[in-house]
C-alpha cells in the first residue's frame, strides 16, 4: 500500500503532535532537555521491515517497550531502541554518568516509563483523530529481535507503520535514534480518517 504525499504529510503531522506532547511531558520529569526531530514515516509490510532492516539488525536483541491496543482499530505499538541509544537516553534523563552503565532493573523501569509516555502520546493523538477510546495494555519491556516483536499470528503481509525519530540532549552532547512501529488493523481506517482530516483542513 502506498500513501499519497498528502496522506503522508497528514500522518506525519499527527505523529509529530503526539511526539511533541510526549517530549514536553518528558521534560517536566527530567533535568536534561530532550529534543526530538520531526519523524520520518514508512509504510511497510512486516517482511519488508524484517528484510530491509532500516538500521534495525534482526539478529540483534533490541530493547523494546510495547503496548497493545484495541478499539476502532487494534494492534500493537512498539518503541524500539538500538541498545546504545536506549542507554544514552536513559542515562540522559536520569542524570547518571553514561559510562560504565548497565541495563539493570531500574533502568528498564525508566525506559518503560519513557516508552509509556511516547506511545501513549502518539496513540492519544491517533485516538483523538479517530474520535475513539482505545483499550490499552500496560506497557511491557521486552528484549527481542525485530521479527519476534509482533504477535505470533501476525502475517508477513501485515502493514506496519515505521516511525523513525532522532533525539538529542544538547546539554550532554548525546543523540540517538528511536523507532516506533505500529501494527494497525485495519490500516485503511486510519488512512481514510487521515484523508478526511486533510479534506476538512
Amino acid at each position, binding site marked *: 500500500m502506498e500513501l499519497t504525499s498528502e496522506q503522508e504529510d497528514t500522518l506525519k503531522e499527527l505523529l509529530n503532535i503526539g511526539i511533541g506532547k510526549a517530549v514536553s*511531558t518528558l521534560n*517536566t*520529569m*527530567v533535568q536534561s532537555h530532550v529534543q526530538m526531530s520531526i519523524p520520518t514515516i514508512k509504510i511497510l509490510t512486516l517482511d519488508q521491515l524484517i528484510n530491509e532492516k532500516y538500521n534495525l539488525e534482526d539478529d540483534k536483541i533490541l530493547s523494546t517497550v510495547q*503496548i497493545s491496543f484495541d478499539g476502532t482499530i487494534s494492534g500493537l505499538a512498539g518503541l524500539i531502541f538500538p541498545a546504545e541509544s536506549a542507554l544514552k537516553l*536513559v542515562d540522559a*534523563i*536520569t542524570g547518571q554518568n553514561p559510562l*560504565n552503565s*548497565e541495563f*539493570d*532493573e*531500574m*533502568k528498564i*523501569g*525508566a525506559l*518503560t*516509563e519513557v516508552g*509509556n*509516555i511516547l506511545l*501513549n502520546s502518539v*496513540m*492519544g493523538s491517533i*485516538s483523538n483523530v479517530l474520535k475513539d*477510546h*482505545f*483499550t*490499552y*495494555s*500496560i*506497557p511491557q519491556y521486552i528484549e527481542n529481535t525485530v521479527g519476534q516483536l509482533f504477535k505470533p499470528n501476525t502475517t508477513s503481509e501485515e502493514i506496519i507503520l515505521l516511525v523513525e525519530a532522532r533525539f538529542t540532549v544538547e546539554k550532554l552532547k548525546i543523540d540517538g535514534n528511536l523507532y516506533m512501529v505500529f501494527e494497525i488493523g485495519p490500516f485503511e481506517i486510519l488512512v481514510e480518517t487521515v484523508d478526511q482530516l486533510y479534506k476538512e483542513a
Partner: protein
Amino acid sequence: MRVFDGLKQPFDILDSIPMGAFILQKDFIVLFWNKQMEGWTHFPRKEILGTNITSYYPHLTEAKYLSRIQTVFEDMSPIIFSSQLHKQIIPCSSLKDGSLQIQKTTVTPLTHENNGEVYALFIVEDVTEISRRIKNYQEAKDQALKKVEEHKTTEKALKESEERFNLVLKAADIAAWDWDVKTGDTVFDEHWAGMLGYLLEEIEQNVSTWEKLLHPDDKSKVMKVLNRHLEGQTPFYETEFRMRTKSGEWLWILVRGKVIARDKDGKAIRMTGTHLDVTDRKLAEEALQQRFEELAKARKASLNMMMDLERARDQANTAWREAERANQAKSEFLANMSHEIRTPMNAILGFAEILTTKVKNKENQHYLSSIISSGKTLLTLINDILDLSKVEAGKLSLKYSVVDIRLILKDMQSIFSQKVDENNVNFIMNIDSDLPRALLLDETRLRQIFLNIIGNAVKFTESGYIKLAVHIINPNKDKSKLDLKFCIEDTGIGIADDQKEAIFESFKQHKDQSHSKYGGTGLGLAITKRLVEMMGGKIILESELNKGSTFSVIIHDVDIPSGIKKQKDTSFDSSVIHFDKAKILIVDDISINRMLLKGYLDNYELTLLEAADGKRAIDMAKQFLPDLILMDLKMPVMGGFEAAKILKSHAETQSIPIVIITATVREDIEKLVPDACDGYLRKPTSKSQVIQVLTRFLSHSIQEKTIETPSENNLLPMTPEIMAKLPELITVLEGDVTDLWKNVSAVLNISHIKDFANHLMSLAAEYQYQPMDLWAKELVSRADIYDTEGITKTLLRFPKLIEALKASLTSD
C-alpha cells in the same frame, strides 16, 4: 474492564494483594485505599475515603504527576511511574530503617459499567529492597571493574616500563652484569660480551673474565674503588677503566654498580651493575683537555694584552679628557682674552703712534718705531690666533662685497714677483676668459687665502714655476651663480703623504720645514682651510715629495651681482682729511682710552669733550650740544646703549650722531647698533678708522695727493727719455731713500712702511720706473695685512731693486 459486577464491596479483593492499591475518581477524590496503603501510610481507609488525595499528597498536583494521571482519565491509557524517575509516588517510611520507600507505580483506568465514569487504579510496589540490592551490586561491580581496570593499567605500565628499560639499555649501549660475590659466578648479558667483541658463549660467566680483560694499569685503582664499596664505605660503585676487546683494542668502560644483598655480617653477597663504552667520550675529553689548556694559555695571554690595552685606553682617555679640557680652556681663554688683549694693545700702539709725531730725538724715535713695529707684529700674531679661534668658535663672519678677482691676482703677482724672479721661478697666470669682473666675495679673506697659499708656494719653490689658474667649473649653472676653482701649482719641495693632512692643522708646520729657514707661525694653512670652508668651499692638496704641490680651492655658488659696481677703494688715507671746526664728546670710563682718542684727533681743528659715564655724557651733551659723540658701551653708572637711547629720545640731543666704540666680540652688535646709534668701531681702533668714521658725520675737505698710478698691466717699454732720467733716480734711491729704508726696516712701523712705499711709488711715477712701483705695491699689500714676515723679506730686496735698476742701464 467491568470490575463492578456483583460485588458489594467491589474493591475489597485489593486488600488481599501484597501491594499498595488505591483508586481515584477523576476529581482526585479517593474512592478506595487498601490495607497495604493503610499499613504503609498509617492513614486509615475511613479517614481518607471521600477526600481529595492532593490534600494529603500535594506533590501530585505537580505537572509531572498531574498531566500524566490526567491522561489515564482522558485517554484511558495505563501509565507507569518508574522508581528510577520518581523514587516514590506516595511517600512512606520503609519498615527497615525509616528511610523512604522506593516505589514502582502502575496506574490503569477502570470504567464504570453503567455510567461510563473512569477511575484510576494505582498499584504501588515497594521496590526498596530490590533497588538497594541492585545499587549494591552496581557499586560492587563498579568497584571490581575499577580494580580490574587499575590492575590492567598497572600491568600494562609494568610491561611498558620493562620494555622501555630494555630498550633504553639497548639504545644506550649499556651492558649489564650480576655478580655473586661469594662464588664469583657472574651473569654477563649479551651486550656485555658484544661490547668487547665476544659472543656470549665465548666468555666464561665468572668475575675472572672481567679481571682478565681489565687493563693492568687500571687494576689497582679499580680494585680500591670496588673494595671500598664492597665494605660499604660508598653508596655506589662507579669508576672508569680500560678493557681489552677480542681484537686487542682497549675500550674505556664506565662501570656503575651497587651491592644489592649483604649477609647479616654486612658482607656483600650479590652485586649488579652496568658497563658503558665511553671510549669516544674519553678520547674527546682528552682532546678537549688539550685544547682547553691551549685555550687557557691563549686566553691568559690575551687577557694580559687586554689589560695592557685597557690601561693604555684609560691613559689615552685621561689624556684625551685633559686635552679636551685644555682645549676648552684655551678657547674660553682666547674668547675672554681677545678683549683684554686688544684693549692694551690698542693703547700701546695708539700712544706709540701719537708719540711718533711728538718725539724728535732720533734715538728715541728709533725706540718708538721698535715698539710700534714689535707691537704690530704681536698684534698680527694675535689676530691670526684670534682669527683661528674665532673661526673655530664659529664667531667669524664673512663680509661680502663686489670683488674683481683679476685685480687681486695681479696684486698677488706683483707682491711675489721679486722673490720669484730671484729664484728663477716662472710665475704663470692662467685666468679663465669668461671669469666675470665682479663677483660677490669677502675680499679680505680671499686675499688672506691667496697670500697664504701663494706665499707657501713661493717659499718652498726654488726653481721651476708657480702656476696660478682660475677656472669656472660649473658654467652651465644659473647665471646668477658660478663655481670657482683656483689652482696654485708649484714645483717646490712637495709634501709627503703622511704630512698632507697635518699641514692643515693648527700650529703644525711641514715636518722638514726648518723654522729658521722658512719661518711662519704655522697657522696660515689652518686658517686658510677654515676660511675656504666658511665660504662653502673646499681645499684639495695634491703633492709629491720633491716634485711639487697643487693646492686647489673650490668655492661653490659664488654670486654674480647684477649691476657691476666699481670696487670700493678700501685704502683710506687719514692724512688727507681736513675737518671743519667741530665739537666731539668722548665718553669712556677708562681715561687711557679717552686719551688715545684725543691723541688721534689732536692735530685737527676739533674741540674735544670728555665724559666718564653715560649719565655724565647726557649732561654734557645737553650742555654743549656736540657735533658727534664717541661712546664706549660698558661703563659704570650708565652704559653706552642706555645713554644713547636717552639722548635719542630728547629733542635737543636727538640729532647728535653717536658712534659706539666697543671691545665686545659679539657678532650681533651690528644688529643692535643701528637702532640706537649711528655707527660703531671695534677696539682696538686705529687712527685712520676713527677719522674715516668721523668723515661720515662731520663736514670736511680732502686734500688730494697727486700720484699718478702706473698702468696695472705689463711693464711698459722703457723709452730713451725714461732711461735718461734713471741715473738720477739711482742717486735719490741710494741717498735719502736708503736712509729711510734702513730706518723703516729697523723699526717695522706699518704706517712708516706705507709712507715709505707711497714715497717710492711717487718716485716710481715721477721717473716712470715700473719695477719699483710694483715692489712698493707689494710692500703696501703686505703692510695692509700685517704680513711682517713678508714685509721683512720685501724690504730686504730693496738693494736688489737698485742693482736691477743699475743692471738695466748697463745692459742697454
